């Protein structure tokens, strides 16, 4: 088993009577991208803030780099880079000047580290534009530059593609992947966008109403996703009657008047088609399918989908 970079044990956060994070046990391994997936208000950002000490812990424990977080913050935090919500910078300074302040406070002496970080995110070192004139995308990029400037071992990114254009999102995705694969940085990323997590994460943690419902590798989740035969027929009610009576198929789901899912995928699709046609039921299409992550998310959270 790989080293656990972040481990939380029965992590809880309460605001008055409202439980925002409920007994969450996270296990983030070294060198992986861990995607925390959940709706807005699920508790993703609160968990990240608790790890970074921005919000107090009601109960539970957080271990980072194998050490208890409490009491070891001064040793642990310099090894972490993070973006939480909207990155904060000084509006009266340029991007470079802002990074210079944070570099100084981090004790970074290398002169090229700021330029390198800005180049990585596609911002100019010599730009005279003040931060208050930055677009949303530029602000986000500067936040990423600030997070990676000191070459951290762990990156905590709260919705890092927020505000980026489509090209920017693709670039950010590749950038994050490279950071992990080439530099061996462990990355905890949160998002409410399924496709983002799908394309990036090695391990996915699904969180809903403060509860960690599932923590699996993406490969395991794919396996768990149900496969089925999707039939488009002229009448699902007639089709069900025939399939039940003639083939004994009972594991199915009706999507609507014409679409039907059959979960007994060991059945011969050709036989099914032939049976339906001979019983005067038109078969407009038939194919093998599997649940997407969105379907899985809907099932596990019992909700309408991710918003």
């Amino acid at each position, binding site marked *: 088993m790989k080293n656990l970079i972040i481990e939380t044990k029965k992590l809880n956060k309460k605001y008055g009577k409202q439980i925002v994070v409920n007994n969450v046990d996270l296990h983030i391994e070294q060198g992986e991208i861990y995607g925390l997936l959940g709706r807005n208000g699920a508790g993703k950002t609160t968990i990240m*803030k608790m790890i970074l*000490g921005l919000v107090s812990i009601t109960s539970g424990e957080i271990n980072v780099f194998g050490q208890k977080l409490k009491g070891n913050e*001064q040793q642990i*935090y310099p090894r972490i880079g*993070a973006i939480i919500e*909207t*990155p904060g910078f000084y509006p*009266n*300074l340029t991007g470079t000047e802002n990074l210079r302040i944070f570099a*100084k406070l981090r004790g970074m002496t290398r002169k090229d580290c700021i330029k390198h970080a800005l180049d990585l995110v596609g911002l100019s070192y010599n730009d005279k534009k003040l931060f208050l004139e930055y677009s949303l995308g530029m602000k986000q990029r500067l936040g990423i530059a600030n997070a990676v400037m000191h070459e951290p071992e762990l990156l905590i990114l709260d919705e890092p593609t927020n505000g980026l254009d489509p090209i920017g999102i693709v670039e950010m995705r590749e950038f994050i992947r490279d950071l992990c694969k080439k530099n061996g940085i462990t990355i905890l990323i949160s998002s409410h966008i399924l496709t983002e997590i799908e394309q990036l994460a090695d391990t996915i943690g699904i969180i809903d109403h403060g509860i960690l419902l599932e923590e699996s590798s993406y490969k395991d989740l794919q396996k768990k996703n149900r496969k089925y035969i999707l039939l488009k027929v002229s009448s699902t009610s007639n089709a069900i009657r025939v399939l039940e009576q003639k083939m004994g198929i009972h594991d199915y789901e009706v999507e609507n008047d014409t679409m039907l899912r059959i979960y007994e995928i060991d059945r011969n699709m050709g036989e099914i088609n032939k049976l339906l046609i001979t019983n005067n039921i038109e078969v407009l299409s038939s194919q093998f399918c599997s649940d997407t992550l969105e379907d899985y998310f809907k099932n596990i959270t019992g909700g309408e989908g991710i918003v």
Partner: protein
Amino acid sequence: MKSLIQTEFLKFKRSRILYISIFGVLIISATVLLQGQHIFYGEKYADKSGWLITAALSLGSFYILPPLFALIGSYSISREYQDGTMKELAIIPVRGKELIVSKLIVSFTFCIFLTLLLFVLELFTEVILYTNKLTILEMIRYLKQYFLQGIALFFAITPLIAIVTIFRKGYWLSVIFAMIYSFAGVFTSQSQMFKSIYPISASFCFSGFYDVSGMQFMIACISLIISLLIAGIILRSARVYRME
């Protein structure tokens, strides 16, 4: 701490607060000049040697300098919450209390600069515009008064700056309280008992503006130290980085 202080100075680059504060000091000077045109028993106030310098210090200390100092100090703390940079500093990590202390040190530097700027303006006005004959010894005495007054006034208002760590974006609350707190000194300075106890009027006792006994001077020093201690207590209990 050194890098904290250096970066605090960097954060003021292009910031208008300094220019605006300097403008405030100019207004004190202009107002005192205006007041100096009053004629009293056939003589203009401004024609009396040292009147402009002492009037500016008095007027500034009771009405303008404390709210300005409170504004500078509370702005430097409040802006981190306004701009969202506090969480970035927390992650570095920068110790919250050290951060606030570095801000107080930098604000203190600006405030002393403003006080001394006022001194220079008044000295210039006295000597050049009114050709009042001030001896070198008198100039040094006034410089000492201004310098010590600036220090004492800043000490007196540090509790009001410290409350910004609790009210966060309520920088202006500390300015309002500073305004009320400072002009209340007009009343306490008229009382032999209270003038060395109430921090604003105690600053005059500390700087030598008022001729006071040794005991009153000691009480003034204790009063100003208590102000600092109150600020320290507020800062100790403040949870600088908590976002809840």
